[in-house]
């Protein structure tokens, strides 16, 4: 499968063959209008409602939500675990992409399909599936249920494909001649990897890491069953938001959601910038 699943390919707009861009015709203006109306009703207005609801109490509202020790613990846990898992993915994702592109062995096709499974897996099932192997009835004797490690495990599962799938196509397109030239000029393997291969992978790794971090920060379904949602211990931000909603405290929920939304927006903007920089260079 391609990176298009995650792909920042939407931002490939303006790349490729230039062609003639049309100005809007009456028909396409109508299309744009209808699309924008639906997009606004579905995405823009609801997201604006979150920010507006959160802003009802002004800055005071945010401070109050953040000062709540349970919320603060949830934020620390979520950011810490997401960073940890993203770091893990930077190493493992790049390594797996390397093996998938440069290595040939029996079962490689299966490995390739397994990477995509976390994409297709319903999140609630992810929790259930991980509990089967790493829960109370674990055949391995490893029980992470209701432990911190369960959060790490679930996040590692759901974010597995991101870096693999962003690095894989870049690695496959890499010019072998340059590496051979470097080798024939006497560069050692490690030097080639460090000076030639790794730098060309950095944008892809960064993009994948951003997606993986964004996904980890916002994860909900897979954590519900396995983490036990224990305050101060395994309760993540999205679970905290949902408990605010269930308790009828929409303002606090919205305040916390606004912070998550800001992170999401930051990631999207960063991806846009990386993509454009690569496109310009490429």
């Amino acid at each position, binding site marked *: 499968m391609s990176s298009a699943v995650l792909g920042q390919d939407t931002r490939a707009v303006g790349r490729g063959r230039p062609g003639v861009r049309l100005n*809007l015709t009456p028909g396409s203006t109508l299309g744009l209008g209808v699309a924008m109306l639906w997009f606004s009703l579905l995405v823009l207005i609801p997201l604006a409602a979150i920010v507006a609801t959160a802003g009802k109490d002004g800055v005071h509202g945010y401070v109050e939500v953040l000062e709540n020790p349970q919320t603060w613990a949830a934020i620390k846990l979520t950011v810490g675990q997401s960073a940890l898992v993203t770091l893990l993915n930077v190493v493992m994702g790049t390594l797996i992409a390397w093996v998938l592109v440069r290595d040939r062995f029996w079962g490689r096709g299966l490995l390739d399909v397994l990477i995509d499974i976390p994409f297709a897996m319903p999140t609630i099932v992810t929790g259930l599936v991980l509990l089967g192997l790493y829960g109370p009835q674990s055949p391995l004797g490893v029980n992470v249920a209701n432990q911190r490690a369960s959060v790490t495990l679930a996040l590692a599962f759901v974010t597995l494909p991101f870096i693999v799938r962003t690095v894989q196509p870049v690695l496959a397109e890499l010019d072998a001649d340059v590496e051979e030239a470097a080798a024939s000029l006497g560069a050692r393997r490690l030097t080639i990897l460090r000076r030639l291969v790794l730098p060309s992978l950095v944008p892809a790794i960064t993009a994948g890491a951003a997606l993986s971090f964004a996904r980890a920060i916002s994860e909900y379904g897979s954590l519900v069953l396995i983490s036990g949602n224990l305050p101060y211990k395994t309760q993540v931000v999205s679970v905290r938001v949902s408990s605010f909603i269930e308790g009828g405290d929409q303002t606090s929920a919205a305040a916390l959601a606004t912070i998550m939304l800001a992170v999401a927006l930051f990631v999207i903007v960063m991806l846009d910038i990386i993509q454009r920089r690569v496109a310009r260079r490429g």
Partner: protein
Amino acid sequence: MVELSAPVKWALRLIAVGYVLMLVGWPMVTLAQNAFSDGLTNFTSAFSDPDVVHAMVLTIEISGWAVAINTVFGVGMALLLVRYEFPGKRVLSALVDLPMAVSPVVIGLALLLVYNGRTGWFGPTLEANGVQVMFAMPAMIMATCFVSLPLVVREVVPVLTEIGDDQEQAARSLGASATQTLRRITLPAIKWAVVYGVVLTFARSIGEYGALKIVSGNLSGQTQNAPLVIAQLYDNFAKGEAYAVAFTLVLLAVLCIVIVSLLRPKESSS
């Protein structure tokens, strides 16, 4: 190309395969084992419950709507983004990706704040006119559309960019109308990208949990979809049944992914 020494190569291979097997492969096998722990008993017992059957049917129904809406929106949006110039295009192109980075819970909350019948921005007006959005089909379809919004756009945009518009221009200069060009030239060219987008949207839609938990009301036999039923069965200690429904759902989703990966190489070799 850099040739790694044999021990390094084997070590990397082992780490990659080991990691993926421990994280994904083995847990998947355990799921199957748990689902079939008593032969087919878990399945017969789960699917003799009318609420479970209703949830499965509802899931497929919601996903069908989401796929239909997102396909029309996705193809239209991709055409606009690639073929036309208009102010705000870059912002729109980035915003279309936003749903991928937003938490399902935040999506649920966003829809709740606008469409709930008591304090929502539009909810009370809509309900006064007899349109029940929240805790009913419309909200569930909207939440599902939201989470899977970028999938079709993302598949179609690169293909549209890649094929360029030479053929479309030729068709137009030979006197084809806009509709004819779209139907005879553009749509056949992006056919496979749309198929991938549809399959991925479907796979994503049948598994949505977080957003639907908030906007559906989670009423057994009424607004409960399959993932919500799985969570409820598990919480009620009907673990065997939970695994059976989960296995069925995963089978559907994984089938989608396998279809996509089987279709994809064919396209690049042609």
